[in-house]
């Protein structure tokens, strides 16, 4: 089981690096979908099949589809790849690599100090997830739904047709 986890993690890491380095936006998004799918596999291996399924349905299957949809609508041609190539130079990612490097060193030190125990999996069934969601975490669920409703109303307001606006 542990080697399956490391394989999925390696795929996720590789795909994430590819997301950052691809110049073509659609290719980058496809690698991101792959990264999300391998994350779903990791969730599955850690004993959370429900979260794994939701990861695929919501992130890979809906949100990323919307991203691809928007990029298709913009229909950016080869000139955007050239633009990306100009932006993607040393001075852009020098700072980012420095910060990420600090995190990497921290991670290595943390791993050397105490390597966490290999996977001790207890499966969390959909039943248990829903019991805790609508039991102790009910307030959080309600707050999130209110936040989403506000976003929905805001999007509707922004997307409203101009002539339907009432005259002052």
């Amino acid at each position, binding site marked *: 089981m542990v080697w399956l986890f490391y394989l999925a993690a390696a795929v996720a890491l590789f795909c994430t690096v590819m997301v950052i380095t691809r110049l073509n936006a659609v290719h980058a998004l496809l690698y991101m979908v792959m990264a999300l799918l391998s994350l779903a596999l990791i969730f599955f291996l850690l004993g959370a099949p*429900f979260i794994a*399924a939701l990861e695929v*349905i919501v992130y890979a299957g809906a949100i990323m*589809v*919307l991203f*691809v949809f928007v990029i*298709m*609508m913009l229909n950016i041609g080869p000139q955007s790849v050239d633009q990306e190539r100009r932006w993607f130079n040393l001075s852009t990612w020098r700072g980012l690599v420095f910060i990420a490097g600090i995190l990497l060193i921290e991670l290595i030190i943390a791993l050397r100090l105490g390597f966490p125990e290999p996977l001790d999996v207890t499966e969390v069934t959909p039943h248990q997830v829903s019991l805790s969601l609508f039991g102790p975490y009910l307030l959080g669920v309600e707050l999130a739904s209110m936040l989403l409703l506000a976003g929905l109303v805001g999007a509707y307001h922004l997307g409203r047709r101009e002539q339907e606006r009432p005259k002052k």
Partner: protein
Amino acid sequence: MSAWLPWLNIFGVLFGALTTAAMLIWVERRLLAVWQDRYGPNRVGPFGLLQVVADVIKIFTKEDWIPPFADKPVFILAPAVVMTTVLMSFAVIPFAPGIGVVDFNIGLLFFLAMSSLSVYSVMLAGWSSNSKYSLLGGMRSAAQMLSYEVFMGLSLAGVVVMAGSFSLRDIVEAQRNVWFFIPQFLGLVTFLMAGLAETHRLPFDLPEAESELIAGYHSEYSGMKFGMFFVGEYLGIALISSFIVTMFFGGWLGPFLPPFVWFGLKTSVFVALFILLRASLPRPRFDQLMAFAWKAMLPLTLLNLVVTGGLVLAFGF
């Protein structure tokens, strides 16, 4: 013997699904012909049964051409996605006791996940072809499938509430007393609509509307890559039909005949229904299609879910 059983299941289901999809091409052409008062393919072999073989030989020997303006890796990936996702979904379908690849306790969610991933196939095909008709087809399908997916999951939620499980085997077992199409009739209707839209069959085949988009997202495809889209569509019909049977019509349950035969019979009825819909209904306009999803189907599924949840909570059946 028992060590071989999983492999037998896997390859049996794979072989069965692909054969069914290939045969559906012939079935559809014959049935359409019957309803349109003509013969259909009846020259090759008995009843024209070998027409499929002839078509396959032809499509394999055709030139498989990739247009120079296409995005090559994505162009090749797109038809593979539809085949993979649909075949993966067949893994969770319980055909009969003991027949079926895997019994997930999240089987239903797995099906929904795979069907939401299959959107990529059409979208990427439309985008990578780099032609305006394909792009229009791809965008239409993205909008259509996203909208219909919203209530596809919700329409099944009523069944989940009544069965108390996401596992498809448990759902079939929960229908021993009464098949779910009676208490969940609204769920059945809405899921059927969503299924039609997900497989983009007529009357919801706007992504590939021949008369306006010249086959839409796959107009640049030829040879076996086109064949993959074609077989993928028929696999989708078989999948949605068997899923309707599992969720609403008691799966393999039925008197006298062996379970697997019952499953096959029920599924065939829905496959025929899909074809009859194609033969009889015209295509709506795209805005009508979207309005239908958001203004009619979504409220209906929500209503169904609220009523089902309330009744189950009140009477606990």
